[in-house]
């Protein structure tokens, strides 16, 4: 299943490294990354493939949410379908 990981929060050194390490630990493959910093705010989106992940979706969502909390930013994973539904005709 393809899922979108988004990260939003104040910019600092090492955000991408930490998030990617966490995804690697969950065995989630990153297919595409785009990121930008606007007015000191870091936003990143990653298209990921969770089909070989070593945990179920609920656990992954929980782990990432907690990781985000510990890093002081919002980190979440959502199935890709919701974005397609809203933005593609």
């Amino acid at each position, binding site marked *: 299943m393809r899922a979108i990981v988004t990260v939003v929060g104040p910019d600092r050194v090492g955000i991408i490294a930490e998030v990617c390490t966490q995804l690697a630990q969950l065995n989630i493959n990153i297919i595409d990354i785009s990121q*930008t910093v606007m007015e000191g705010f870091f*936003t990143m989106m990653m298209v990921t493939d969770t089909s070989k992940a070593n945990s179920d979706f609920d656990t992954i969502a929980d782990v990432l949410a907690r990781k985000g909390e510990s890093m002081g930013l919002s980190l979440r994973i*959502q199935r*890709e379908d*919701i974005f397609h539904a809203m933005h593609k005709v």
Partner: protein
Amino acid sequence: MLSHNDIMSTIDMIDHQHLDIRTITLGLSLLDCADPNAERCAQKIYDKICRHAEQLVPTGETIERELGIPIVNKRISVTPIALVGGASETENFAIFAQAMDRAAHTVGVNFIGGFSALVHKGMTSGDRRLIQSIPEALSTTELVCSSVNVGSTKAGINMEAVRWMGQIIKDTAARTADQGGMGCAKLVVFCNAVEDNPFMAGAFHGVGEPESVINVGVSGPGVVAHALKEVQGKPLDEVAELIKKTAFRITRMGQLVAQEASRRLNVPFGVVDLSLAPTPAIGDSVARILEAMGLEVCGTHGTTAALALLNDAVKKGGVMASSSVGGLSGAFIPVSEDEGMIAAASCGTLTLDKLEAMTCVCSVGLDMIAVPGDTTADTLSAIIADEAAIGMVNTKTTAVRLIPAVGSKVGDMVEFGGLLGSAPVMPVHPESAAELIARGGRIPAPMQSLKN
């Protein structure tokens, strides 16, 4: 390929603009629960609801987590109980409401609708017994919602039922006096009620519906209000275009959730109801959308025109986004559930008369309005009759949900809590309509009914 901006705009809508799915409602037929013995019928009702709705809440929660979109309510609507209980030899239908309430608690939904009767042309024995049981049913249950359809474009208005409902609302307020007349917040009087409405308190599972069905209600006043910042000072056709686009996005999300829920529960998908349903939260208000269109305060001159544009644009945007649109679909204007409406009513700009005019162009009717506790049953009936007349003549659904909280006076605030919010008590006209209401009989169906 999804763009960074698209993804971030969705995240922003969820985080900061209160985008959510308002309700997944499981419609369930209870026709096969009819039984001459009332206790047995109640047991069948309880068993069937628990059996079919067991997975509703967990499934909703799973979809919520996977898609990352809040699904605020999971609810159940059932066959109008007047039809189910009609076969039972009992005068008191509260026993069925209590069975519904127990089942709703067991499966974990937050409302169950369908303690209802359809009496637009006349009343059966089951309808009469149900209506007389409404005050007890609503005061002895927590999650049960009740509705009565008193008129339709095809049949006219049953003024006997209108007269009775004024009294039933008074009795319900009296029996729930210690909770600010809370029972009345769960009681809707309809004209042209729809059979597939997923929103409470007026949801019931119509007889033309399948055995069970999933209907989804979307929301998103905050998203529309936010989008309007893009078109400040621009002509209204541009405003309408922008609302259409926004409604399209919101409804697509509703369609996705509806399909997922339908597939996982193995229950057919019914409709997406593309209503703008406000909540008392700041930034989730329909009144504030109207104000963003250029009104100083909602309820002033120009409000009806702005609402007409909003209501129509929401429908147009939503229709293409879903394979099946139904329910009430439009903009809701419940006073107590909308932070901007509460403010406008509290300062006296938004009046009952203006709200009545607004119901000519919005999706439903006079909704969640507190009136003084000494408002007579005749006056309540007269308000219902006015609203039903608007629905009947304009071939649209209208509804009345009034709360004459015992002891309340104009200017007081009646608190319900949660999604039901708080309502400023609004003045009604003191002059009587008692003679009109006492006449009873029927208002014949209008010319619009003769289409064949």
